[in-house]
């Protein structure tokens, strides 16, 4: 954060520090805050104040989008609890999970040669979404039990799935464009 707000993201929006959040309330408070800090509210202010409002509005956007996304929120919550992520050095080592990932990735590569590529891709995307939802539930249980390292391992796996999800979306776009 570089706009001077040192409070954590949950506090910015007046929400309890928890994985389960009231997303409606988050969105409402977000809008309320943007109404006061957005640069458009400072269109006639001095340049310094306008710059400051850009930074504040950027901070609030960052905080909002971090909390809005379940995966980002999961990771951020652990960081507030002192868990450190070192993405360069650490990767998940669960061999079963890695095998699953490779299989999913292969299935994704095979979509292009399938007879009904859209249906095939749709199945894979639903499968990924189901896995993500399931792991988020698991994560939530870990947080409730205070098992932070286990929760961290789940976040690392979720990051794999998230990448796969993005790749599947790119593939979908390519298929749509090819029509």
């Amino acid at each position, binding site marked *: 954060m570089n706009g001077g707000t040192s409070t954590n993201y949950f506090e910015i929006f007046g929400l309890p520090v928890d994985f389960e959040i009231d997303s409606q309330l988050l969105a409402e408070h977000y809008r309320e*805050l943007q109404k006061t800090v957005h640069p458009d509210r400072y269109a006639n202010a001095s340049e310094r104040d306008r710059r400051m409002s850009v930074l504040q509005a950027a901070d609030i956007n960052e905080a909002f989008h971090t909390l809005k996304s379940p995966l980002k929120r999961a990771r951020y919550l652990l960081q507030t609890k002192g868990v450190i992520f070192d993405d360069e050095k650490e990767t998940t080592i669960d061999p079963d999970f890695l095998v699953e990932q490779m299989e999913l990735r292969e299935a994704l590569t095979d979509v292009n040669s399938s007879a009904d590529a859209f249906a095939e891709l749709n199945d894979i995307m639903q499968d990924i979404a189901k896995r993500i939802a399931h792991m988020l539930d698991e994560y939530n249980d870990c947080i409730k039990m205070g098992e932070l390292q286990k929760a961290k391992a789940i976040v690392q796996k979720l990051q794999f799935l998230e990448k796969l999800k993005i790749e599947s979306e790119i593939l979908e776009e390519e298929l749509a464009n090819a029509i």
Partner: protein
Amino acid sequence: MALLQISEPGQSTKPHERRLAAGIDLGTTNSLVASVRSSLADTLPSETGEHLLPSVVHYLADGEVMVGAAAKAQASQDPLNTIASIKRLMGRGLGDIKHLGSRLPYEFTQTDSSVPRIKTVAGDKSPVEVSADILRVLKRRAEQTLGGELDGVVITVPAYFDDAQRQATKDAGKLAGLNVLRLLNEPTAAAVAYGLDRSNEGVIAVYDLGGGTFDISILRLNKGIFEVMSTGGDTALGGDDFDLAIANWIMQQAGVSDDAGHGLLRRLMSEACAAKEALTSSDSASLNIELENGKTWRGELSRAQLNQLIDPLIQKTIVACRRALRDAQISTDEVQAVVMVGGSTRVPRVREKIGEFFAQPPLVDIDPDKVVAIGAALQADVLAGNKPDDEMLLLDVTPLSLGLETMGGLVEKIIPRNTTIPVARAQDFTTYKDGQTAMTIHVLQGERELVSDCRSLGRFSLHEIPPMVAGAARIRVTFQVDADGLLSVTAQEETTGKQASIQIKPSYGLTDSEIENMLRDSIDYAKDDVEARNLREQQVEADRVIDALQIALQKDGDMLTESEVKAIESALLHLQKVRQGDDHRAIKKAIDVLNTASTEFAARRMNKTIKQALAGHQLKEFE
């Protein structure tokens, strides 16, 4: 219990002081200016009663500049000195222009600058200068109608415009002597025009097919907030392409070869456009083309044939609609309204196909040519401070991903597309070799992984990195996108605390000195010297700073210790004194001193505002 106060937004506008503001739609084919008068927003007509100003500029040898219908009339006789559709060239490099097709009927000058210049009898003109000539006419029209100098304007741009194109548009405004309050995305402007009239709540899609650009935006409306959820489109697709498709078809039918002269190409394009417009209401249009051999070719274009010609183009827009919906994580049945913008949405086939895709008839109540300017006028009125109680707020997104070149010609994305702006994001990088003291940062915009497939926005170097072993230095690169969608990139070396920040200028943009030179050369500033303009600018800024601080001290002076108040007050007095003089450099310095003295105060006030915003909110909830 005492009620908690909610502080007002940080504006220092005095009451009853109505500021003159206007919204400008700087279009590919036509441009408009609109303003809010007696609480109604409407476009302003010219002296002859025309609302649309054709975006055509004709340059004459004696330096006279014609803009609009009169210029358009010169197009076929003097094509080389008559510039149309200049918006397509805004923020583009020469390389891009070759891509745009061989049919641009202008001659370009080879220069050292990356900005293309069009050869005319009145000298070489950059797209920014041509656009500024259009803006000057609109400025004059607004000032004559409203009876005074404009305090500020909102200029609209396609949501899909990249950083270079936005910067070029803002530069054109500056060159025309306008105070640009905001660059507003055209679809957002259209939503504002519709939304305020209907007090809509929910998700709306804005389908904007203009002469040269296509935008699709998905917005959520909620209690006066217009939140763009996603945006997409094509900066080189529009009604002109319909005309081109028709013209190509006529060429085939009439046996005209590809190397036909400029004059015939112009006639073909205007005949194609006329046929397209005629087919809006009738089932067939007759064609008449005078060929280069003096003979006339006659033919007919049916609506069915037209549909066949343009269907692939409409299909391209639907692919973009699908992508925008997915980015917004919205399905078609959640879309409550589809707003049509741009003259090309008059084509019946477009309405039919888009209605089919969204499974509802699109909204066409507001004139699709005027709707963007009207929305921009409403936003300009709010930004100028004429509606302090207005709750309207527009939250836009970045249309394209922004990133840096990393090893192996790959792009590392720092800010993905459709991120809400303003946004600031930092990423750390390190050195590759022992003792490395400099680093080149290459900024890119686009969705692809390879540097060569993305658009280069610029490069800059960070020097004087203290020599260390490879991988030890920590260089933090920060991308910041402001509310206009304009990017600035800064880099600093962190381990030693040594800071080196650089502002980036897009590769295809004009440099500050180029703009300064153009300002010097332009007619508006001919009698005016640059010193005087600088003085005025600094005086305006000084007044803003003084005003705002006096109000702040009155309201929140109790947040400061006595010595803090003294420090601020002495800097304030100094600025007030220097402000009376005519040394703009001294005024700037005094502003800087006062800003430094009051930065901590401003930060505390902003934090208080934030806390109060939610405090007021929670109070309401628990009542």
